[in-house]
């Protein structure tokens, strides 16, 4: 009997099928790896197991016993613990208190035993081999230190099922070794470990079995010793999806923006060499956390580079604020359109005018007539489906909101368009229209940088694909060379490429 069994799990979000009948088991004393591309459904499955998300259908059982009323608290009581990629500690509380809050009961009127808390914290920190002062504020620790505190907390919880979501993503080499030794200890003690990682080499070292998810569906479960890395990549991608680029051929223009040795210590991007040409769509692929969005933010002056150089039309240029980037002719349509891309409570007109207020203004006042003309013109160009240009943007569909976000920047007539996840969460029809708009921009001689986790999308729109891993560009594939396998191999640090 498996220790934990998730059977026939289904979960739908509006417009997205996150999980479709996935079954997953973990035995006591086993490390079971869970792999899949971005958006394959790993995170959703984990959230269901930890009780953070309720599935639409399917069952969870522990020791063969059906789990009812599953939520984060009961999951904790049942011995299911998780360590996430991003540590979730209380920054203004001490390490000892952080550990205690996760481990002690929740009664409000109990006395707090600080000496016991400190002693226990010290003991757990010693076990994970972390030299961290239990009285230090968690917020003052580095990310790897916080990760170690999380691991100590899971140790203290005496978890029976321990889920690790990319635990090594921000650990330095020495810490990784120590973590693996710890996991081996836990495994020997009969804990069932679910291990999510994009680092396939780690899995070979650590995991007993591996389950592959793809597009919310269960693909297969294999013994780790029976599969090699190319096979795993093939399973993750799925043969039938491995399409060639289908963008129409466009003659590449002159280099617009050349990056050499570009880096920014704050967000971990380093040594980026990349050329973005006029008249082309450059896809920027890579796993979540590989530095794609961070690179885009550097180019738009949100987190200015502190290393390397940038040249615009051959002239050295510095982009230290978004205002400078805009003046240079750069547009940035951010990933989170609801938060940064559009101003929801304002009308279509007000949104499209936002980037060009100075041009529309006469003597300090915005000319309403010109503002409306602009909105009508852009609405037609993008085939915007809104009741009128006075409609509130927040009430539009995701696809139309994204068109407004694009329209806003079209108005500014930039040379370089950076779009981050341009079609996330929007329907197929709107998606192809947005692809058409991006293609039109390139055809008109603009440079377009498309950051996307959606690999078929990257292949469909890009003239070239640059792949990022661990904060830098590890390779660039031309249209003919780019396939899902090759992109994934680069993104994962595959055998054919030396990172």
């Amino acid at each position: 009997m498996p220790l934990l069994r998730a059977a026939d799990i289904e979960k739908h979000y509006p417009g997205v099928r996150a999980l479709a009948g996935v079954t997953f088991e973990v035995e006591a004393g086993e490390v079971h790896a869970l792999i899949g591309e971005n958006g394959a459904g790993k995170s959703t499955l984990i959230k269901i197991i930890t009780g953070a998300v309720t599935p639409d259908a399917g069952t969870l059982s522990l020791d063969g016993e059906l789990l009812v009323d599953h939520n984060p608290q009961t999951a904790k009581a049942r011995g299911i613990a998780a360590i996430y990629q991003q540590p979730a500690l209380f920054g203004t509380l001490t390490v000892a208190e952080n550990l205690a809050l996760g481990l002690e009961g929740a009664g409000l009127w109990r006395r707090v035993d600080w000496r016991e808390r400190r002693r226990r914290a010290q003991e757990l920190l010693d076990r994970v081999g972390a030299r961290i002062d239990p009285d230090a504020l968690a917020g003052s620790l580095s990310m790897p230190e916080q990760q170690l505190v999380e691991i100590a907390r899971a140790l203290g919880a005496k978890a029976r099922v321990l889920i690790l979501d990319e635990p090594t993503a921000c650990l330095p080499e020495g810490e990784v070794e120590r973590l693996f030794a710890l996991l081996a200890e836990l495994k020997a003690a009969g804990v069932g470990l679910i291990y999510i990682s994009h680092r396939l080499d780690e899995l070979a070292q650590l995991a007993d079995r591996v389950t592959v998810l793809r597009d919310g569906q269960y693909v297969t479960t294999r013994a780790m010793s029976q599969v090699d890395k190319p096979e795993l990549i093939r399973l993750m991608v799925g043969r039938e999806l491995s399409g060639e680029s289908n963008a129409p051929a466009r003659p590449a223009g002159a280099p617009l923006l050349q990056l050499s040795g570009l880096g920014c210590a704050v967000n971990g991007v380093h040594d980026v060499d990349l050329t973005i040409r006029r008249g082309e769509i450059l896809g920027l692929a890579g796993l979540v956390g590989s530095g794609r969005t961070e690179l885009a933010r550097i180019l738009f002056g949100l987190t200015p580079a502190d290393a390397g150089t940038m040249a615009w039309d051959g002239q050295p240029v510095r982009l230290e604020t978004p205002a400078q980037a805009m003046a240079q002719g750069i547009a940035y349509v951010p990933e989170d359109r609801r938060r940064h891309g559009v101003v929801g409570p304002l009308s279509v007109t007000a949104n499209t005018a936002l980037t060009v207020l100075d041009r529309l203004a006469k003597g300090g006042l915005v000319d309403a007539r010109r503002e409306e003309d602009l909105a009508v013109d852009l609405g037609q160009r993008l085939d915007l489906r809104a009741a009128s240009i006075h409609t509130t943007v927040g009430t539009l569909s995701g696809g139309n909101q994204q068109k407004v976000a694009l329209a806003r920047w079209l108005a500014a007539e930039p040379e370089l368009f950076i779009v981050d996840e341009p079609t996330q969460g929007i329907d197929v029809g709107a998606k192809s229209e947005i692809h058409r708009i991006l293609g039109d921009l390139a055809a008109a001689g603009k440079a377009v940088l498309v950051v996307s986790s959606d690999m078929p999308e990257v292949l469909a729109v890009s003239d070239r694909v640059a792949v990022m891993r661990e904060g830098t560009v590890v390779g660039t594939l031309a249209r003919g060379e780019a396939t899902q396998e090759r992109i994934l191999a680069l993104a994962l640090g595959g055998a054919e490429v030396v990172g």
Partner: protein
Amino acid sequence: MKSADRRVLTVAGVLGVLLLGLAVAAPGFFQLGNLRDLIVDNSLVLLPALGMTAVILCHEIDLSVGSIFGVCCVVAGGLAQAGFPMPALLLLIPLLGAAFGALNAGLVVGLGVPSMIATLATMVGIRGALQWFTQGAWVNDLPAGFQWFGLGQAAGQALLVLVAAALWLALSWMFGQVAAGRALYAVGADADAARLVGIRPKAVVSGAFVSLGALAGLAALLSSARFTSIQPSAGTGMELQVIACVVVGGTSILGGRGGLTGTLLGVALLGVIATTLIFLHVNPAWEKAIQGAIILVAMLGARSHSVDRLPAERPVAGRVPGKVVRP
């Protein structure tokens, strides 16, 4: 050293320097009568400041405390006239304050109204209702047993200070040593994370608002007992004074950090400064401006050694800024 501790030490240092300066420049400040008035007056500020500390630690705010104070003063006077004995009032008036606190909690926790807006509404609403109900008339002719609880001025003042001191001690202990007190910090630091470790943030925030209401009610009763008449405008502006004391005392307006030692020092510092201005014959019109300047300076001091960081850029795999501890 933790930044909260440093804040407390900074405030204590400023207070010490100020007192030393006064000893030289205006020794009259240390006359017994002046000190007694200072302590009695500020005990009445300390009581609501204790509750306000709890509310701010949860990353909420309560602007209605002055209005709750006012209504409790008037009701206390009315009930005393109607012949309610003092012990009954000691129970009823804090309960009335707690009820208003529960109203705030309901708006904030139940309806999800941001506390700044919810308590702005109750602040204006309660004060307006009070003015309408009393038509601005003072409550006079209080029974003899009401003033100083019938104990006489000296004993009454001592009682008032003792109550404030005892509550400060008890709550300080609770904030540090009881899970409910620590829960205030956890909820203020990260309400979602608090829920995941089994704390119910709604219960904790409600508790803070209700406690503040009850403490404002208690302060109102003790304050009313000092005078022979009660004005319906009592407590006007009190919310800002109380918030200022808490914030100057080092409790972070962003929640999750601070405490009652700092609040006591904050009350003492602002109280001493107000009295100092009188002793130095500064035009009273300047008092608020100087208080404002002190709050600004305190905030700047907090910024310079705060562990608050801007929302960090998400670190990228393998390249993490910051120090790494190697075992």
